[in-house]
């Protein structure tokens, strides 16, 4: 079997988010023993390292971490490669993730022993690495098996316990034109670390390019589904609280015992509380919708990817397993989204009910105020009428008194005989004018003093009448003497 050239035995993939650029560069530097990612890729004399860019700088700028993958082929975009002894390191880009591949090569006769040795080396490196880098999104180990390798041998080499072993015959088009098989051990560990084995004449080409793309989608879906599941506990608890509160509100009697402004204030407080709950549900709803949208898109991509790599007409166990698993997660997300919509509608209805209660209470308060206003207005009208009657009576009494005393005063000054010789109608006009002007003038004087203005025509007309009447009395007294 060995022909003198080392054969690829194990590939280990580190997945990081592209946005964690610093951690990615740190990981790359730690793995490659300080081979700078800024392009300083000169071989290190003591490690016998060689490195090369596989893509030309014109097409793919050196270490451009934003490099987009080839969407048509769905494979990784290789950015940089470094070989140190029998171990190769590749830095590749996927749509949202960067993948660092560590390929262990070994000249061997016993594949089992080669896997064992490579896996031991890998574990030693991992332990050392994880003291420096902790932003690794997920890891995958792929064992490269010869054509026709026994799956149970591979499982034994991995050394873990898996409930099931799934296999998917690969489309020769993605495995160097040769028949190949992808074997997967799902849920072997809970640390977001997966194991695969690729068997076939040319398993290496698929393991190096097609598998990271496929596995990154699975990892992403697993992470989103896990995150959603964690959030769902909180969301379900919040939704339960809102449903209970809304139920209690909707079954409470329409008009509460509290009345008046106290009752309105209580209801307005309930509206504020319901609005807060509505906002909470809206936020939860947004999170669930984002999660379900993300899962839906990725699940479609995953299904397309399995369709692309799977051998036509043969059973695809891995694709079927993940499609079923993530479809269930997606269904849960949709179900939660529907429940949230229902709770939001209930909260909205409760807000409307309480708002109606407030309006009813306010309408009642307004009607009572209107009734009171009308009563006050009626009382005021009666008082006004009575005051007017009193004013008229007082004015008449004042006129009579002034008339009497003016006449008597006039007789007293010029003599009774003189006054009695005057024509009665003339006396009546003169004394009546004086008395009337005095009575009316008093009223206008009061108004003038009240309004603080002397521009009252009535006052000045009264004063003029008084003066003219007095002058008439003087003139008449002189004329009849």
């Amino acid at each position: 079997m060995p022909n003198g050239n080392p054969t690829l035995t194990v590939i280990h993939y580190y997945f990081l988010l592209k946005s964690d650029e610093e951690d990615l560069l740190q990981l790359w530097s730690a793995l490659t023993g300080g081979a700078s990612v800024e392009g300083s890729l000169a071989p290190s004399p003591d490690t016998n390292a060689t490195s090369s860019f596989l893509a030309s700088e014109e097409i793919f700028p050196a270490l451009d971490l934003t490099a987009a993958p080839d969407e048509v082929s769905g494979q990784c975009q290789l950015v940089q490669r470094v070989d140190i002894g029998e171990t190769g390191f590749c830095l590749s880009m996927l749509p949202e993730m960067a993948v660092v591949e560590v390929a262990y090569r070994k000249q061997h006769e016993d594949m089992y022993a080669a896997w064992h040795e490579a896996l031991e080396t890998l574990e030693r490196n991992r332990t050392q690495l994880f003291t420096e880098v902790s932003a690794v999104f997920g890891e995958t180990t792929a064992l490269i098996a010869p054509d026709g390798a026994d799956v149970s041998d591979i499982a034994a080499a991995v050394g873990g316990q898996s409930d099931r072993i799934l296999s998917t015959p690969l489309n020769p088009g993605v495995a160097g034109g040769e028949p190949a098989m992808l074997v997967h051990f799902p849920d072997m560990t809970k640390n977001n670390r997966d194991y695969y084995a690729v068997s076939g004449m040319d398993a290496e080409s698929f393991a190096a390019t097609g598998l990271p793309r496929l596995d990154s989608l699975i990892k992403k879906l697993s992470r989103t589904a896990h995150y959603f599941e964690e959030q769902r506990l909180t969301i379900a608890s919040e939704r339960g609280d809102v449903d209970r509160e809304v139920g209690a509100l909707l079954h409470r009697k329409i008009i509460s015992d509290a009345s008046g402004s106290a009752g309105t204030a209580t209801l307005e407080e309930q509206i504020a509380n319901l609005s807060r709950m509505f906002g909470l549900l809206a936020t939860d709803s947004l999170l669930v919708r984002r999660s379900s949208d993300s899962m839906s898109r990725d699940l479609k991509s995953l299904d397309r990817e399995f369709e692309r790599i799977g051998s036509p007409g043969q059973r695809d166990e891995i694709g079927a397993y993940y499609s079923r698993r993530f479809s269930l997660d997606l269904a849960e997300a949709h179900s939660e989204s529907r429940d949230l919509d229902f709770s939001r509608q209930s909260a909205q209805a409760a807000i409307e009910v309480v708002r109606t209660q407030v309006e009813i209470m306010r309408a009642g308060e307004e009607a009572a105020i209107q009734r009171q206003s009308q009563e006050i207005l009626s009382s005021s009208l009666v008082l006004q009428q009575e005051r007017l009657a009193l004013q008229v009576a007082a004015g008449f009494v004042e006129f009579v008194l002034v008339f009497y005393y003016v006449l008597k005063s006039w007789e007293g000054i010029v003599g009774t005989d003189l006054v009695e010789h005057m024509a009665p109608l003339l006396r009546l006009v003169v004394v009546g004018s004086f008395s009337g002007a005095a009575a009316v003038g008093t009223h206008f004087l009061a108004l003038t003093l009240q309004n603080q203005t002397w521009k009252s025509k009535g006052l000045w007309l009264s004063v003029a009448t008084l003066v003219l009447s007095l002058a008439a009395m003087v003139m008449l007294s002189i004329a009849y003497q």
Partner: protein
Amino acid sequence: MDVIKLMEEAIEDERRAQEKYRQGTEAAEDPETRSLFEQLAHMEVGHERLLRERLAALKLIRGQQ
């Protein structure tokens, strides 16, 4: 404040706490105190991992909006 920024700061806080407890472990004079600091540092590592997982999920979900 953006939740992603907030979580990144929280991760930094967790890392600082780990460093502090590790220093405490080194400075501890008796095994009991050393063990306590080790436990605390381990707890902070767990918190950091939890935050990182959630941050990564958030970034992935938001990255597609």
